[in-house]
């Protein structure tokens, strides 16, 4: 009867595509909106992702997320370095800085100052130039998107496209000359601001004068050292806050979840997708079952046990669910491919696919339950009613 159930489903094309659209819509909205949400969260932690060699981030205890920089005294760097179990500890400067463009306009940028000697924290993928070129006087690395976008050189001819920054171009950062020595490929930042890498000492000369200049201490643990224990030791010995990279990411995400409207906005979209999908699918599927009710009654009269009829309905529901889910995530994947280089944040994870899959199963089961109830209660005697 499995094949019969599938043929009943597929051959009623109008209803089949209606139900499929409902499931697909739900799948699409849940995964697409969810991916944008995860993408935004991912970008919020971009700086942490871009420094995968760092095990522990040390910061002021009042820091709430990665952008919430509360500078430390530089003397705290050697204090951290002195703690047992640390392979190395490097400074990181992080601040916003204003870049002046050739046409006189200014653009806020993220400035990251990494250790002068080791260049720990430098971007992993270079499009042009090399990380070591940062040893060049006034050298900076600019992210690829900014180089061809917000920091691109405006055309002298009005209406003509701007020219992307290339190695050898100069920038004016807070009245200081900066020489572009490399173009790097990194995750875009949460605010979509250009990211500029330079050495720590050069960064503090570019930036406005501040009494404290050390934003974070980047720590690599010795092999075999328990990271949580090391964090505890750093906190105990220095009075600073130390978090594993993973914990710092989650703290950043947690901040966005608690203190911004982002999760509410996306949560509403996802919920709406789920509800609309449920209503459309449920209604269409129930209607499909009602249309076939006399046939189910005929099957019952002919000796079909309730279990067989329930299997037919659940199978129909699951098949349409799997197809709708597949098409939905396919469209989401296509969307993700199309926006790869666009400013839209997008990150489709397996967890999101799992959540969407569970939501679709829930939608299908809710739809099937309504139909199953109707069929179970169906008196086979209705077959004799014209």
């Amino acid at each position: 009867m499995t094949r019969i159930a599938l043929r009943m489903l597929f051959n009623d094309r109008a209803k089949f595509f209606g139900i499929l659209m409902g499931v697909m819509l739900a799948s699409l909205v849940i995964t697409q909106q969810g991916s944008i949400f995860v993408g935004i969260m991912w970008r919020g932690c971009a700086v942490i992702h871009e420094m995968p060699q760092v095990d522990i981030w040390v910061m002021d205890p009042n820091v709430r997320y990665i952008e919430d920089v509360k500078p430390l005294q530089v003397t705290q760097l050697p204090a951290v370095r002195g703690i047992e179990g640390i392979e190395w500890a490097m400074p990181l400067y992080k601040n916003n800085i204003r870049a002046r463009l050739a046409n006189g306009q200014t653009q806020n940028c993220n400035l990251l100052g990494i250790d002068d000697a080791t260049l720990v924290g430098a971007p992993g993928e270079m499009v042009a130039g090399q990380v070591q070129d940062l040893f060049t006087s006034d050298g900076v690395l600019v992210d690829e998107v900014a180089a061809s976008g917000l920091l691109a050189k405006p055309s002298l001819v009005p209406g003509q496209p701007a020219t992307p920054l290339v190695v050898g171009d100069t920038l004016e950062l807070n009245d200081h000359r900066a020489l572009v020595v490399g173009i790097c490929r990194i995750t875009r930042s949460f605010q979509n601001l250009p990211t500029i890498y330079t050495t720590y000492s050069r960064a503090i000369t570019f930036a406005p004068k501040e009494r404290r200049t050390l934003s974070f201490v980047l720590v690599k643990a010795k092999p075999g050292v328990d990271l949580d224990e090391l964090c505890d030791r750093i906190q105990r010995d220095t009075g600073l806050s130390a978090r594993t990279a993973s914990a710092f990411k989650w703290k950043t995400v947690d901040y966005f979840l608690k203190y911004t409207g982002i999760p509410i906005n996306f949560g509403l979209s996802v919920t709406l997708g789920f509800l609309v999908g449920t209503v459309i699918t449920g209604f269409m599927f129930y209607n499909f079952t009602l249309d076939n009710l006399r046939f189910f009654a005929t099957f019952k009269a002919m000796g079909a046990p309730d279990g067989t009829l329930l299997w037919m309905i659940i199978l129909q529901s699951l098949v349409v669910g799997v197809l709708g889910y597949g098409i939905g995530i396919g469209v989401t994947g296509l969307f993700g491919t199309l926006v790869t280089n666009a400013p839209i944040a997008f990150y489709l994870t397996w967890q999101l696919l799992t959540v969407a899959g569970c939501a679709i199963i829930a939608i299908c089961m809710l739809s099937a339950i309504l139909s199953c109830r109707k069929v179970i209660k169906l008196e086979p005697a209705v077959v004799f009613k014209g």
Partner: protein
Amino acid sequence: MSTASLESIAPTPAPGGRPIAVHCDAVTKSYGSGQSIVRALRGIDLDVYQNELMMLVGPSGCGKTTLISIIAGVLDRDGGDCSVFGEDFSALSSGQRVRFRGRTIGFVFQSFNLIPTLTIAENIAVPLLLQGVKRREAMDRAREVLGKVGLAERWRESSSKLSGGQQQRVAICRAIVHGPRLIVCDEPTSALDHATGEKVMNLMREAAVGNGKSLIVVTHDSRIYSYADRIAMMDDGQVIKLVNDPRSL
């Protein structure tokens, strides 16, 4: 009780020696309750013999459909006794009842109830598939039966493409494909013209009567009375007359 034991039950012989297929004794059935109660059957006594075509005739609302629903085991009676080949549906569990019905009874409906999204052969194969017959075997048997009604070449087509008479022939194939011992038909010719109705009745008589099989036909159509072996005339929930020689009507 297993299906095998159900099938092995010997038919109850009638006092005169003819084996009985269906035995109804003081069967009652009501719908609704209180002031709005409708007494559909008021004590039906009726025997249908094996190898017999019994017609139930009477005005609308006289209880014909209710009676075949009870005989076919798709509706519970309120009182009295009713057995089919010696088996009382009310004594069976839900599962036993479904299995017994599936193996013993075939159905032909007024509106055919063929599934338009299935092919003709698939429609016919449904009773076999419900009994666990492999799809290929079920389809082969469906096509074989279809050949008997002259529609073998059209087995792949959708049933919705057939005329009313052809659909009823397919419905008859579906009712007989699994070899049931009793077939119940509800107004099988009401949607057909006279000539087609006669063909359908000839076909049903040929396919469903004999070898211990019986056929019960509910009808308003007086043109087909002559096909019956006996006719039970019903009115107001009772059998008011049993006609042993329908050709005399």
